[in-house]
């Protein structure tokens, strides 16, 4: 594919390369993202800087355009896939260098609900934004959530429901967390077609997330706030 006017990634300076990576993420070009991640690492960038300045910043544009109805699910999935390619390279390096983590999310559809496409989209977008995601699948009773949160040392709990009959179960999970005195250890995000902000507040979630892009934004903002509180 060496057209004459092809851009050679390795010939771009850092700033141009990062801009190009944002474009390539937007267009879902996985191989180009992988190549560019390797170039930045070879130039001595820290894995954390590659993650935040190149990948996460690029995915933020994708997320915003999804939120604004400019991009739709297929394009977003391709972008997330490209991001994932870059992440696969960075993950071991991030662990080695002890870089700060974006955060870890346990996500699942609540008991009684077998719809999973929305949850899967959120999981992909969250991974795309650099979070670690543990997907516990569909039809989860409260015990599954609690066990996974504890086992994984998670920061965020994500619950999804597509049915009006199953969304009240989210309250059961949150109430159980309160009883056990662990509610405040986690950020609880809820989503699903029949939900709304009012419902999220009524059941005691930290936030209702209208779509996958909003979930990522909420998660970033809330994790940052939590870190600040811990630092204070």
């Amino acid at each position, binding site marked *: *594919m060496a*057209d004459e*006017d*092809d*851009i050679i990634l390795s010939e771009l300076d850092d700033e141009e390369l990062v801009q*190009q990576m944002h*474009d*390539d993420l*937007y*267009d879902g*070009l996985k191989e180009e993202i992988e190549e560019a991640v390797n170039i930045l690492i070879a130039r001595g960038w820290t894995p954390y800087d590659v993650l935040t300045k190149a990948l996460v910043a690029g995915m933020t544009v994708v997320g915003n*355009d999804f939120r*604004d*109805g*400019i*991009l*739709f*699910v*297929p*394009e977003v*999935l*391709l972008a*997330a*896939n490209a991001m994932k390619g870059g992440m696969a390279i960075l993950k071991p390096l991030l662990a080695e260098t002890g870089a700060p983590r974006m955060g870890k999310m346990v996500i699942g559809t609540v*008991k*009684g*609900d*077998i*719809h*999973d*496409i929305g949850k*899967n989209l959120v999981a*992909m977008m969250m991974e795309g934004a650099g979070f670690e995601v543990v997907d516990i699948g*569909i*039809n989860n009773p409260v015990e599954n959530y609690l066990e996974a949160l504890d086992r994984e040392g998670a920061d965020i709990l994500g619950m999804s429901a597509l*049915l*009006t*009959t*199953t*969304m*009240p179960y989210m*309250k059961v999970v949150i109430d159980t967390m309160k009883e056990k005195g662990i509610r405040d250890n986690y950020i609880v995000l809820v989503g699903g*077609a*029949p939900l*709304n902000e*009012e*419902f999220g507040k*009524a059941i005691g979630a930290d936030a209702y997330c209208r*779509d996958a892009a909003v979930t990522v934004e909420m998660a970033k903002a809330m994790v940052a706030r939590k870190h600040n509180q811990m630092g204070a």
Partner: protein
Amino acid sequence: MTNTLSRLLKSRDWLLADGATGTNLFNMGLSSGEPPEMWNVEHPDRIAKLYGFAVEAGSDLFLTNSFGGNAARLKLHNAQGRVRELNRIAAEIGRNVADKAGRPVAVCGSVGPTGEIFAPMGTLTHELAVEIFHEQAEGLKEGGADVLWVETISAPEEYKAAAEAARLAGMDWCGTMSFDTAGRTMMGVTSAQMSALVEKLPNPPLAFGANCGVGAADLMRTLMGFVATGTERPLIAKGNAGIPKYHDGHIHYDGTPELMGDYACLARDAGATIIGGCCGTMPVHLKAMHEALSTRPRGPRPSLEEITAKLGAFSSASDGTGDDDGAGRERRGRRRG
């Protein structure tokens, strides 16, 4: 090819479809998480009662209890080996109810989405999707369904696969998509794009349109989008009875029977031929829709303003068609290459 639905479409200028399946079954005691299709075998009496709700309310057709009856969905309950059986029985029960109605009522074999995402992001391929839908179609055909009724689809690839499955099964079909994301389907399809997609199929549906989505107002806007493409094909409008609201631990849809009656007439005046409800549409709503369609004279095609005045506001400013069909900004594309 003659079937009850084709004959009805020839002789009538509007047909009343049915209402909600899930909402009604939950009211009869289905616990959430349980696949409704199991009730075809475990509680055939309740499924017959569900179909009977529609017939008694005056519906000209009803959908079988087989929405999630494909191998991909049933696999979540380890029942992927029962596709043929569960679909056959769903249609058989329907055949019985329809044949006793004393007037022509079409049994429409419901085919819902696989819930899988297509490759390259997901694992679903065209071949696999066709196979999944075809297996279900054969069961519905065996049980005596008049037509296949593909619904709540969001990916164009999945719609095409369902069409091919109908062709393989030798059945006429209808197919609706769910427009729930700023007037588009979750996968970004606009009403205009669906109209174009339908006409490109080697075996286009008897009728196409929209179901579920957000509220009745949004569904009307989508319907107007189909009409604006100049399609000659009968259009289907199956909207939810309003929007679900949470009150003191209970959920109810805020659409009243009166509102659904208004919606039914607006849909007819806008150009829909097959009009029904979706989530939250109970027998009382269907009766109001039947009453309204039977008694109110046809009116001029409504404007978007009249729709919002009667049914409430749209959930998004635009639906991606008309003057602002271009995305807000061009994809930037690759600078290299």
